[in-house]
């Protein structure tokens, strides 16, 4: 039984075949980099993983069970997806970090949020900042923290360092790598060839909606 398994998965819209007959396995603890040209279907692949969309053909299973048999909300709590363009809602950062607590009927725990801020070497003052005043890179890291608060089993990252400078990219890479060491499975889309090989143990190349190669590098 593999952890996350795609078998003959296709995703087709009315006028376009976006992913074609994809079969692959991801094991628990994997760090998978996903590369491929723009428009090749990488984001679509991750959205399938967290069940925001369903394959039009084929099946995806998690821990041996078809995704269709899971409660979608519980599944998405275990398989967290960070969007390519981070979206922060409400007026303040705090609302965004409260949301995961609200969903779980828990009171907000500011200490937990602060731990993550310090992990990313950000000041805890961000909690009260207004969303509209944040830079793209700040938004990306806050969106990341929002997904990390409750330790998901699989983390799906869609070009999360695209708006970050060198120093902050490094910080994020370090955090993700250490989460992976603690057992979190990582699927990371990146356009940066160097980044794709730095921490990953597998590299998946998608081209034109097809699986081009799946290479084990460690």
């Amino acid at each position, binding site marked *: 039984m593999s952890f996350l398994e795609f078998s003959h998965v296709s995703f087709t*819209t009315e006028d376009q075949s976006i992913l074609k007959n994809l079969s692959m396995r991801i094991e628990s603890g994997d760090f998978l980099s996903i590369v491929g040209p723009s428009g090749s279907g990488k984001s679509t692949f991750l959205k399938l993983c*967290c*069940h*925001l*969309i*369903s394959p039009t053909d084929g099946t995806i299973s998690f821990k041996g069970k078809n995704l*269709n048999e899971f409660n*979608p*909300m*519980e599944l*998405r*709590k275990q398989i*967290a*997806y960070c*969007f390519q*363009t981070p*979206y922060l*809602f409400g007026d303040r950062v705090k609302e965004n970090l409260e*949301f*995961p607590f*609200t*969903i779980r009927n828990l009171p907000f725990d500011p200490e937990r949020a602060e731990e993550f801020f310090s992990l990313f070497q950000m000041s805890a003052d961000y909690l009260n900042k207004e969303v509209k005043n944040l830079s793209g890179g700040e938004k990306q890291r806050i*969106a990341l923290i*929002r*997904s990390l608060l409750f330790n998901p089993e699989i983390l799906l990252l869609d070009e999360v360092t695209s708006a970050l400078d060198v120093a902050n990219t490094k910080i994020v890479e370090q955090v993700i790598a250490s989460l992976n060491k603690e057992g979190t499975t990582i699927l990371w889309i990146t356009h940066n060839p160097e980044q794709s090989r730095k921490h990953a143990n597998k590299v998946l190349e998608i081209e034109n909606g097809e699986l081009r190669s799946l290479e084990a590098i460690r």
Partner: protein
Amino acid sequence: MNGSTPIHVTSLLIASSLVFVTLFFSYWQKLKLEKETIISVVRAVIQLVAVGYVLNFVFGYKNPAFTTLLLLFMTFNASYNAAKRGRAIKRGLSISFLSIAVGTLVTLMILILSGIIRYEPYQIIPIGGMIISNSMVALGLCYKQMAADFKNKREEIETKLALGADILLSSKEIIRDSIKTGMLPTIDSAKTLGIVSLPGMMTGLILAGTSPMEAIKYQIMVTFMLLSTTAISSFISCYLSYRGFFNNRKQLINRPEN
């Protein structure tokens, strides 16, 4: 009503010369509205005469079952219209019917229990008509807002879904905004009542000889009832229709634009 002066048909004919004023302007300014003006005037007269006869008949026919049937018919027509405005809304017709029916029922019941009106056709039909048509407009606005929001705020909804939120929590802001959009015109018009315009019903009562102090009592009642009905029907329709934008796997679905 006491003191009302009946209008003679000959006076009406003379008043019809007012239509020529419109026609003259249209012709002079090349608005090309002559044909449409004539059609609309003829239609208005025919429809009103027909309604006059129908109401005359209905008011004489005091069977409550018949009155109820008529109310249902009006509700159905209004739902049909509202659903047509909101083609992006799944099950728009049944949702509209339910929300308008409940809104109307609750409001009429309060009015009847408080002794303001009785279940007599000459009171129920016009009041029901006002309530139902107001709800219809409110629902049309709700649907339009909701469809636009579900199209423009996909990112926000999918972000919340991806965090593990249920569809209700992910749509809460949209539902709230849609209900607001449906209710605002009624609230706004209540705010300006008597300052910007004398509402049609009050004007009618005064023209028919009712004292202004009596007429405002009616208008106050109408304002209350329109507020409560739009609130109830907007609320029900929005909470029922947001689900149609998701599938049973709690995924946001692509709906064709209308």
